[in-house]
């Protein structure tokens, strides 16, 4: 009777099994991209860093694609934006490796995603693709991320004796562009936007935040760019947990992904000052 009482919707999302299948496809394609990149590293005549850049772009592309798939709940339209986002990320990653100035390409990624997301705005509101409810939320996010980043700098320099220095301009800006266009963007898009929002609809805040932050933590711990020393791993766990939970809290409070995104960008902007 409920079906008869409601208008027929021809625009519904796919079933969970279909989504799981498509998620497996995304994972497979991401794995293929990583494998191709790693294989290219060993090929003679190809710049080994380009292979690694391809693998890195594939990983972030996979994150963006999985985010689109979950955000649109398997609706047919997810493939186009996912391919565009993933492709742009791979291109930006390769461009950044070819020249530090190529990292500017990362700054176009938010625009690519924003362009597609605007077309699907009504369907993406549930994941936080909207303006914050409180105008102060972006500032709070930026300040919280900066506080955590500065704390990291102090802790690392005081405890472990790492140097904190104003870095050379170009590599720092290139790294910052990577954080803006890939690192922070994909983390917010997938972990807070798609995963945390979906889990929060079913569970209460803390379980949803714990699971999404746990997945983000795994992603950072598996990142080959993270130096594999015990104290840095412990620090990564500590700060990633705080950052993840903080971003979930910001997403829940403001209803938007923007404050968490700014917090992540601010945190990594501070982190890049650390000479590891």
């Amino acid at each position: 009777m409920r079906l008869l009482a409601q208008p027929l919707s021809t625009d519904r999302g796919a079933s969970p099994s279909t989504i799981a299948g498509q998620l497996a496809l995304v994972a497979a394609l991401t794995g293929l991209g990583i494998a191709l990149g790693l294989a290219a590293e060993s090929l003679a005549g190809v710049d080994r860093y380009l292979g690694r850049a391809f693998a890195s772009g594939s990983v972030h592309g996979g994150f963006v694609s999985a985010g689109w798939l979950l955000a649109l709940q398997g609706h047919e339209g997810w493939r186009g934006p996912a391919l565009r986002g993933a492709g742009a990320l791979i291109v930006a990653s390769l461009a950044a490796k070819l020249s530090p100035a190529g990292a500017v390409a990362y700054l176009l990624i938010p625009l690519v995603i924003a362009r597609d997301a605007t077309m699907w705005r009504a369907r993406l509101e549930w994941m936080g693709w909207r303006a914050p409810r409180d105008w102060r939320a972006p500032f709070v996010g930026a300040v919280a991320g900066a506080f955590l980043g500065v704390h990291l700098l102090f802790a690392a320099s005081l405890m472990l004796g790492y140097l904190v220095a104003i870095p050379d301009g170009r590599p720092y800006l290139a790294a910052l562009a990577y954080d803006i266009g890939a690192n922070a963007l994909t983390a917010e898009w997938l972990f807070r936007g798609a995963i945390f929002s979906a889990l929060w609809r079913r569970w209460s805040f803390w379980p949803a935040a714990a699971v999404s932050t746990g997945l983000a933590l795994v992603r950072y711990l598996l990142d080959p760019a993270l130096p594999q020393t015990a104290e840095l791993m412990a620090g990564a766990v500590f700060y990633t947990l705080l950052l993840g939970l903080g971003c979930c809290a910001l997403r829940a409070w403001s209803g938007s992904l923007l404050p968490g995104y700014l917090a992540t960008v601010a945190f990594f902007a501070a982190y890049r000052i650390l000479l590891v």
Partner: protein
Amino acid sequence: MLGALGLIALIAAAIRTAGGDHVSSLHHLYLIPALWAALARGVTGGALAGLVAGLVQALSVLPLIERAGVSWPALDGLVSLSTPLTMGLTVGRLVDQSRGRGAQLGALLEIQRSLALTRPLRERLAVVAELTRRALGVDRVRLVLEAGGDAPVAASAPETFQPAEVPSSAGATPCRRLVLPLDAGQGAAGALIVERDGDLSTAACCVASALALHVALAIENARLTERQRHFAQELEEKIAGATRRLRELDQAKNEFLTIASHELRTPLTALQGFSELLLTREVPAERARRYLGHVHTESQRLGRIVGDLLDLSRIESGRGPELRPVPLDLRELVEANIEIFASQHPRHHFDWSGAGPVPPLCADRDAVDRMLKNLLSNAIKYSPHGGRVRVEAGVAVDQPGMIALSVEDDGVGIAADALPRIFDPYVRIANPETAAAPGLGLGLSLVRGLAHAHGGRIEVESLPGKGSRFRVLLPA
């Protein structure tokens, strides 16, 4: 909140400047901003200030662990690191609980007061919904109350809230809904629907359940009070009505006694006077015969009055008049009466529509005769300036199985508010035009009693100044 964070920064700077990083008692200063934030903002503020204080302290504690490993000073530092957070959480939670209970208590009192007001139920429910929304700290509340057979009464806070079948999942914040029955122990009388964007904690659900119970009890109390008020008002109206009726009856009896004594004395005086004349004087035979005729007429009149009184007394006591039903020719009875009344009242014109067939009737001849005489007598009495009196008899078209006998006049008529009382005994409706007309106020009461005794009834239609129509219906 910003003040608490500023204070943490000041404390950290002061401790560092004083070189007191390793003096654990100085770290107790961090409790102040955590306590401040907890008191001001509850658990959120306390936890946040405690977390920031802990992170700030960590910068001095963690190098200690790095240098010396897990030592007593390091453990001491770790304890002082966690103290502001623990205290911020604990005090904040207590503050939240205390505020919540205060708000709930206030809301309950307000709810009781609002429900006791004599305003429409929907308005009272709207106030209760708003109070409940504030007490629970939720976004939307709807109260639905069964209203005894009619459509349920519902009110929302905010007013525009209409809960969908399934809570909306399109928004950036998930919507949690709780539906609770309003049950004061006699089955659910309604439902309390609570919606919140974000989490609805277990504690909030428990509070909502308790509040639903209190709201149900308050509604039940308000209903009982309203019912009592209604009953009291009804009772007052009934008592006032009965008192008024008793006064009217008392007045009617007094009037009756006055009139009856006059009506009885008139024939008695005539009887006494004429009999005394016959006894004490020599009266010529012809005059004596005339006197005896007067005595006979007046004794017949006296007998009718006494007969009416006896019949009415029997009717009122529930025994009914003694009837001897016989096959009766209604046409013959009507024509005989019209002849008598026409000869006595030449100013009135009698219309008898007896051209059609009048079916035979099995009834007490004397009773039908008295009913007809009473109705004709009234028609003449209440047409003081003469006029037309229309008599009809025949099968009642609108009442199958009944024979109707109706008498219609174009006299003074009866006011609508007096119509319900005209069949009561001893009642004479005040009218200046007919005040001088003789009568005991028994006629219509008697007609009704006789009609009922036959298994029939009497009906009346009247317009003041236009006339009246009485219709007696008797079983065929």
